[in-house]
């Protein structure tokens, strides 16, 4: 399955249309990071070379990717590294990784509910496992185990269901009882004297947390090294469509002529798709998260409770990161609210009463594009050359690598590869939805 990056031997892709124009620069030279280089830099006091630089917006690109987050950068990287596409632009109206990629709670797992979903997210987890080596960038992936708690019979039944589906797809996942949970997380109140006693949990050992900024920077550095133009502060104001095909993109820094546009935005995906005349079954709601002051390490798993609408993990720095479900109404506002913090604190204390004196450091919010079936929308659209990688709701970060890999293949071959074939926009016409609410609504 895994192909060699074609750039290593200076080759280009086999398709003529995508071949690099001769004599064009290969992008920013990228020094390899290693312990040896770190030591030698320490002695010479030299500065590290910049890993990406500013370009002028060129009038023509082969592929224009809208959205400079994890999905956009990963798509650009896999297009450049595995398919030999050279003239790629990534446009972002803000800065790289400033949207959902920098606002999520950095949880990676693959214990989903449907076989299609499990396969898809597990491929992503496998890519994450090898990402640091592939990108030569430390992404700090910590596979510390992931617990999804069940507080009632219905929850426990869903956990068993998920465990069985996971096992059929070769994913390490099992239901454990409160005694085993107590051994994994001694700080958790697993007694039956609480408001919502814990009946069991879905234990998923390969799940864990990762440094989300590093993943974004790693992909950006690798893509820039392959000649991808990263345009920050460049807002898309329109998409030109003629006779059902994309012909160009208008931006605040000039117009671009292109035959391929990829919508990799989150939060703004319906607005961008409307520019191309494509309707999306997506609504946008904020999701809030919060982080505490750092304390000594005491929690070495990710704990999720769907009933209590909360998930907790402890970063390498010692801060506790809390997330919740999406706010109960649609909005593009990323302002935090007091009722969220109150609800969150009360629910966290039901799980871990010992945290009552911890102080919250800050809270933030990011935009989630919710789809009717809690699965993403990836692939071609009725408009030729306009691809979407949107509708990522609350599960976009963990799917970044596989979405980039599959989108790149989809763009070059102009058809959806098998791993994303079930996630196309046409499923809302055929009715073949991929219902993941039982595994994606809160449990991240």
């Amino acid at each position, binding site marked *: 399955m895994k192909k060699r990056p074609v750039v290593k031997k200076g080759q280009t892709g086999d398709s003529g249309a995508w071949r690099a124009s001769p004599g064009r620069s290969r992008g920013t030279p990228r020094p390899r990071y290693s312990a040896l280089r770190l030591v030698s830099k320490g002695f010479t006091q030299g500065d590290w070379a910049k890993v990406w630089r500013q370009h002028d917006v060129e009038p023509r690109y082969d592929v224009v990717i809208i959205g400079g987050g994890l999905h956009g950068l990963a798509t650009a990287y896999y297009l450049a590294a595995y398919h030999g596409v050279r003239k790629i632009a990534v446009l972002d109206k803000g800065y790289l990784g400033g949207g959902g990629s920098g606002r999520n709670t950095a949880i990676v797992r693959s214990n989903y509910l449907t076989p299609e979903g499990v396969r898809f997210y597990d491929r992503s987890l496998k890519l994450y496992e090898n990402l640091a080596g592939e990108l030569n960038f430390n992404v700090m992936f910590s596979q510390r185990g992931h617990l999804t708690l069940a507080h009632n019979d219905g929850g426990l039944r869903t956990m068993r269901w998920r465990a069985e589906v996971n096992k059929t797809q070769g994913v390490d996942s099992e239901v454990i009882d409160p005694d085993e949970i107590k051994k994994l997380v001694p700080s958790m109140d697993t007694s039956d004297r609480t408001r919502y006693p814990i009946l069991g949990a879905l234990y998923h050992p390969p799940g864990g947390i990762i440094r989300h900024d590093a993943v974004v920077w790693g992909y950006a550095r690798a893509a820039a090294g392959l000649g991808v133009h990263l345009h920050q502060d460049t807002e898309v104001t329109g998409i030109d469509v003629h006779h059902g095909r994309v012909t160009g993109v208008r931006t605040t820094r000039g117009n671009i002529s292109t035959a391929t546009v990829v919508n990799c935005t989150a939060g703004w995906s319906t607005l961008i798709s409307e520019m191309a005349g494509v309707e999306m079954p997506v*609504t946008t709601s904020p999701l809030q998260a919060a982080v505490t002051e750092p304390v000594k390490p005491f929690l070495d798993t990710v704990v999720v409770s769907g009933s209590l609408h909360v998930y907790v993990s402890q970063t390498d720095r010692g801060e506790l990161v809390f997330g919740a479900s999406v706010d109960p109404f649609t909005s593009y506002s990323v302002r935090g609210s007091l009722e969220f913090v109150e609800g969150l604190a009360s629910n966290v204390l039901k799980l871990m009463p010992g945290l009552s004196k911890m102080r919250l450091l800050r809270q933030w919010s990011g935009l989630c594009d919710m789809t009717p079936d809690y699965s993403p929308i990836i692939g071609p659209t009725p408009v030729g050359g306009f691809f979407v990688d949107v509708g990522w709701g609350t599960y976009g970060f963990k799917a970044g690598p596989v979405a980039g890999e599959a989108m790149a293949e989809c763009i070059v071959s102009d058809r959806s590869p098998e791993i994303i074939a079930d996630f196309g926009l046409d499923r809302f016409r055929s009715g073949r939805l991929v219902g993941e609410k039982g595994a994606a609504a809160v449990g991240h």
Partner: protein
Amino acid sequence: MMQIPCPWCGPRNATEFRHHGPHAPRPDPATASAEEWRRYLYLRPNPYGPVEETWYHAAGCRRFVSVIRDTFTNATQWSEGGPR
């Protein structure tokens, strides 16, 4: 805190309400085409800016309220249509 203007109770905290979203009339299942039904099931307006929508005052007068809300600032005002 975000407030919703209720015509019966006055401005109240949004936590008392349940969001029902923009008004989406249900087509007649006997006569609706497959495309009309699909649009009713899956497609909802997701505008950036003012939108007229319905909120249900669940923890108050338990009536439906029509409100114009800016989806970016979350500022709300009475809808011209008033209570429905």
